[in-house]
Every structure is written in C-alpha cells, then in structure tokens.
C-alpha cells in the first residue's frame, strides 16, 4: 500500500497554544505528584502561568490567515484565536476566585487544577474543531473533566448527585448529537465541516438530501440545546448549578458557554449555514421558551446559585436569538452577548465566593441582607453586576441585550423582540430583590470578608470594568463582528 500522506511540521505552529497547554498539563500533573504538603500552592501558580502563556500564544495568532491543518480537522481563524484568548483570561480569573473557595472548604487538590486545564484544552479543541469528529472529541474531553470536577467534592452528596445528573443527561445529549452527526455524514459523505458546507450549499440539492439533512438537524439542534441548557432541555441546569461546589459552578457556567457557542457556529453556521431557514425556526422556539421560563421561574428562587441558573437559561435564550436573525451582524451580537455574559457571571459568582467561609456557602439570597453595612464596597460591586445582568442602561449587560434586539428588529422579527423585552423586564424584578436585601434589609449576623487581597483586587477590577466597558462598547462590538 502506498503511503501518500504528507505532513508539514511547520504548520504545527498554528496549534502551538494547544500543544503548549497539553505539555504544561503533563508537567503540572507530574510536579504536583512530587510536591510535599506545604508546597501545594505551586500547582496553582503553575496553572496560572501556563494559562497566561497559552493565552499569549493564542493572542499572537490573532490576524493569522485562516489555516486548516491535520487533514482538515483543525482550523485556525480569528474567531478561534479570539475565543481562545477570552477563554484563557476567563479561566485565569475563575482560578483566582476558585482558590479562595477551595482553601476555605478544604477542597484544594492538585487534580482540580489539572482537570480545569484539561477541560480548557477540550474547549480549545472545540473552538478549533473543523470536523464532526474533533468537535465531538473536544466536547467529550470537556464534559468528562467537568463531571469529575463536580464530583471532586466527594463527601457532599449534593455534589455527587449533581455530577450524576449532569453525567446522565450529558451522555443522552451526546447520543442525540451523534445520531444527528451520523445523518449528516450519511448524506454528505464527509465528516469535514467545509465539505459538508459545500454539499449543503449546493444549489441543486434534491428534496431527498434536504429531507435527510433536516432530519439530522433536529437531532443536532436538540443535542446543542441540551449542552447549552435551553428549555425544554434545561432540567439539569438548576440542579447542577446548585449541587456543584460554587467554584465549579462558576467555571462551568462561564467558559464552556463560549465553547458551546463556538461549536454551534462551526456546525450550524460554518457547516450548515445554507440550511439556516430550517434550523432557525427551531431555535426561535427554544430561545423564547428559555427566556420565558428562565425569567419567570427565577422569581421563585431563594437560593442564589439556583437563581443564577435560571438567569443563565434566559441569557442562553438571548444568545440563541442572535443566531435566529440569520445575518452576520446578528451572529456578532450573539458572540458579544456570550462574552459579556461570561464577564458578568464571573463577577457574580466571584462575589458569592468572596463571602464564603468554612462551613458557610453564602448561597441563600437572605445571606446578602445588610451587605451594604458590613462591606459597602463589595455591595456596590454586586450592585453593578446585578444591574448589568438586569440590563440597566450604562452597564455592559444593557448593550449586549440592546445589540441582540436591534439585530432582531432590523431582521424583521419585531414581535420576537417585544416578547424578549417583556420578559427581560420581568427578570429585572428578581435582580432587584437581591439589591433590596443588600441595601434595605438588616441581618442578624455579621458578614466578614476574609478573601485574600489578590481576589479582592481582581474582583473589583472585574466589576468596575463592567461599568467602564459599558461606557465604550463599540470597540468590543466591532471585535465581535469581525469574527464572522
């Protein structure tokens, strides 16, 4: 048999961030094994360092011409690089916050950081995935690490139950996604995104081909909706958010959303963009259901993690609405939304973690009573975050919603936009509840902020940036638009 395979090692440079991250995972895993008890912090610093370098390497590749390597299964384009840089940044911030939580609740273990890095690697694979196979493998690398991260608190039965629930529903979702992929493969004859795109956008596509692609699309959309946590496939979200250790909840509610949106873009837009009229209807229904259910059910929550879970569901609805528009500016608005969401969500969970002490989870809304008296500064930070999540004008969260609605209206979906606004207003009510308990209620017990200085500093910067960037959102919006 002739071996006609050619491999250009120079092209490996395109995958340098991934290669570096994998090598540092190996190093960190081994170093952590041989560290004695007192030096476990070294693992944390090594993790931050390798995330930083990976981010720099990815940043360096922004503006690199679009390159496809590994026999068309890995793509490097601007979207991939920018997403990777954001993912590294968000993970670094998440790790700063996590450290406080882990030390307070004696969960500080080297494996935690290794698993986080591995899940980041999986997300990078997803972001750069250019064949159904690599997208699937990236997704599974991410999911397997997340299941383990949740269950790492193995003495808490709530966490174990959350892990199991996430695991079972994640496995079912993968099964549905794979069934859809098999149909797409069967009709197009390829696993490769660019070949699928060429097949789907063929003008002479027969009715047989269209039927089969649509059949596969239903399963693909259900699988993606499961992973994003859109209604009616959201049943895992609240329980997993509530049951997981807060630092894991923070991580899994933020960075993987970027990867999920990237996977959505790769499959449904890069690959099956020609089929947009068929999948956008499904998306519209799922998005509206998510916004409605997320906004209404969140009103009844007393647990702040559970409330944030429902708020995530409604944010996911807004992100999906951006893809309904079917125009490049709409996709840009959705990307902008997801990045903003990650930013806000990090800050919100950061404040929850900030108040954590040994034996105190600070996960009830009533735990925030009188925060403004005990810690006026962080009450102010929380106020900024909450107002931004509710979409109050000068904040970043307002612009992200505004751009989505603007795109919807200009694409002719006026009714949809109005419904979304109505539910956004309803959702403002439960955000106001937190503000009310922070500023206008008194608590019997003292709230002490015992977090280390670096966390307080990063958290303050994180929250203030929400306000500051909100004053100049144009640059970021242009950046998001340039990715498509």
């Amino acid at each position, binding site marked *: 048999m002739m071996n006609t395979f050619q491999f250009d090692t120079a092209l490996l440079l395109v995958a340098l961030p991934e290669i570096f991250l994998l090598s540092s995972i190996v190093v960190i895993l081994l170093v952590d094994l041989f560290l004695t008890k007192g030096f476990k912090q070294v693992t944390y610093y090594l993790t931050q360092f390798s995330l930083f370098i990976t981010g720099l390497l990815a940043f360096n590749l922004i503006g690199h011409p679009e390159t496809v390597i590994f026999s068309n299964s890995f793509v490097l384009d601007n979207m991939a690089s920018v997403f990777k840089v954001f993912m590294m940044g968000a993970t670094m911030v998440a790790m700063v916050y996590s450290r406080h939580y882990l030390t307070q609740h004696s969960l500080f273990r080297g494996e935690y950081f290794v698993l986080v890095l591995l899940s980041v690697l999986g997300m990078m694979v997803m972001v750069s995935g250019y064949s*159904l*196979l690599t997208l*699937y*493998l990236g997704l*599974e690398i991410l999911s*397997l690490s997340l*299941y*383990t991260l949740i*269950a790492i608190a*193995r*003495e*808490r*039965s709530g966490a*174990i*139950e959350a*892990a*199991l*629930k996430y*695991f*079972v*529903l994640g*496995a*079912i979702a993968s*099964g*549905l996604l*794979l*069934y859809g*992929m*098999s*149909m797409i*493969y*069967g009709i197009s*004859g*390829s*696993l490769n995104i660019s070949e699928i795109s060429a097949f789907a956008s063929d003008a002479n596509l027969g009715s047989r081909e269209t039927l089969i692609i649509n059949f596969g699309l239903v399963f693909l959309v259900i699988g993606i909706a499961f992973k994003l946590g859109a209604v009616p496939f*959201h*049943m895992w979200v*609240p*329980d997993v958010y509530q049951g997981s250790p807060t630092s894991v909840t923070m991580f899994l509610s933020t960075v993987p959303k970027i990867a999920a949106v990237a996977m959505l873009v790769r499959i449904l837009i890069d690959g099956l963009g020609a089929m947009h009229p068929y999948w956008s209807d499904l998306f519209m229904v799922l998005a509206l259901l998510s916004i409605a259910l997320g906004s209404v*059910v969140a009103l*009844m*929550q007393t647990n702040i993690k559970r409330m944030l879970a429902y708020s995530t569901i409604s944010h996911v609805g807004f992100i999906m609405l951006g893809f309904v528009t079917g125009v490049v500016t709409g996709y840009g608005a959705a990307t902008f939304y997801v990045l903003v969401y990650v930013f806000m969500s990090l800050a919100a969970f950061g404040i929850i973690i900030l108040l954590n002490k040994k034996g105190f989870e600070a996960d009830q809304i009533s735990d925030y009573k009188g925060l403004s008296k005990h810690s006026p500064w962080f009450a102010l930070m929380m106020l900024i975050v909450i107002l931004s999540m509710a979409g109050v004008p000068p904040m970043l969260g307002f612009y992200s919603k505004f751009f989505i609605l603007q795109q919807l209206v200009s694409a002719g979906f006026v009714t949809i936009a109005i419904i979304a606004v109505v539910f956004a207003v309803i959702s403002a009510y439960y955000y106001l509840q937190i503000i009310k308990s922070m500023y206008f209620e008194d608590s019997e017990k003292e709230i002490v902020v015992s977090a280390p200085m670096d966390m307080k500093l990063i958290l303050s910067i994180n929250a203030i940036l929400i306000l500051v960037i909100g004053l100049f959102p144009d640059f970021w919006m242009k950046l998001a638009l340039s990715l498509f």
Partner: protein
Amino acid sequence: MVSLSDYLILSAVIFCIGLVGIFINRTNIITLLMCVELILVAVNTNFIAFSHFLGNEAGQIFVFFILTVAAAEVAIGLAILTLLFRNKGSINVDVTNSLKG
C-alpha cells in the same frame, strides 16, 4: 440484498428502544446507563452502514472513537455512581426531575 434503509431502520428502532428505556427507567441509573449504551450502538450501526454503502472509511473511524469515548465515559459514570452509593447508601435518584422549582 439488504438495502441501506433496512440497516437504518434497524438502528432507528434500537435508538428508540434506548430512548423508551431511558423514559421508563428514570430512577434506575444502572439501567439508564445501559440504555445510553444502546443508543450509542444504534448510532454506531448508522455510521457503519453509511460507511459501507458510501465506500468511505471515515464513518468507521468515527465509530472507533465513539467506542473509546463511551467506554471511558462509562468508567467515570460508574465511579460517580459508587460515590453516590457510599454517600447515600442507595442509588435511587430521579435524574430528570426539576420539580424543585
């Protein structure tokens, strides 16, 4: 000869049996995991049938990876299950309820 549609319908039937199994065995996680395996076997049969009729090996390669991933996934899932058993003394959890509001 056996046509492609025969294979696809077979795997669709198995796929649905798996879904029904998940639906009726909601509280029995072991059986639930087995139903997921059944779904994956159905998907694999799909891929292999397409691969055979298209004369293109990509589908078979994909199946090989699905087998690997699914086995690793089961190993982790069962590990979580044993942890749950250690903590609660039973594995009776309804994974689909979200009725807590």
